[in-house]
């Protein structure tokens, strides 16, 4: 099955891309997909304790099983709003 992984901020810089198509084994979880990406982009492993997961624009737990066509987003700690306010 296929999933699209969306990357933002530093994660997209590490991958050199904002969107990656992944070919995955059936029932692979969001967290497993992230670890798979870490084998391609080892610097992403620094986010192991802090990255959050969203599937189809909703936060999910790392155990969430992906389905064909899902959009998985890797969410590093957010920092919207103004500057240190």
């Amino acid at each position, binding site marked *: 099955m296929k999933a699209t992984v969306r990357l*933002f901020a*530093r994660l997209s810089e590490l991958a050199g891309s904002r969107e990656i198509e992944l070919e995955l084994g059936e029932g692979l979880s969001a967290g497993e997909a992230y670890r798979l990406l870490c084998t391609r982009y080892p610097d992403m492993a620094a986010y192991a304790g802090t990255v959050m997961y969203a599937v189809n*624009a909703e936060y999910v737990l790392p155990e969430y099983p992906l389905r064909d066509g899902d959009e998985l987003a890797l969410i590093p700690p957010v*920092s*919207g*709003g103004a500057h240190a306010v």
Partner: protein
Amino acid sequence: MLFEVTSERLDPERLVNHVRKDESGAVILFFGDVRNNSEGRRVLYLEYDAYPQMAEKVMRQLAEEVMARWPLTDVAIQHRTGRLEIGDTSLLVAVSSPHRKEAFESCHHLVDRFKEVVPIWKKEVWEGGEVWIEGEPVEHS
């Protein structure tokens, strides 16, 4: 309710007109502006990245959360992306309610929650370096 992630300059007047109702006696408008310094560094500009579809969804969830907790008349939120200069507004939150106390409390709460969960990120660029900010820095007041 109105929730937007946009690369355009934000529009405070539009937000205020949106939330203002005949039964609202108080409107609070919060501007998050780009400051010229951060932890002692002289900031040149900021760059905002976002996951817009999800950000707008999460903003709506936050608004529903505060509307359930306080008697408000309406809520509107806008966030800007891309390169922002010193003094530019990155975040606008507008809240209206019959009485002022609820407007102040809920608007403050909304801004706090916004910075915890909405998928938007900023990169600080200063002379000789840059960094993606991850998580909200501790406030030194």
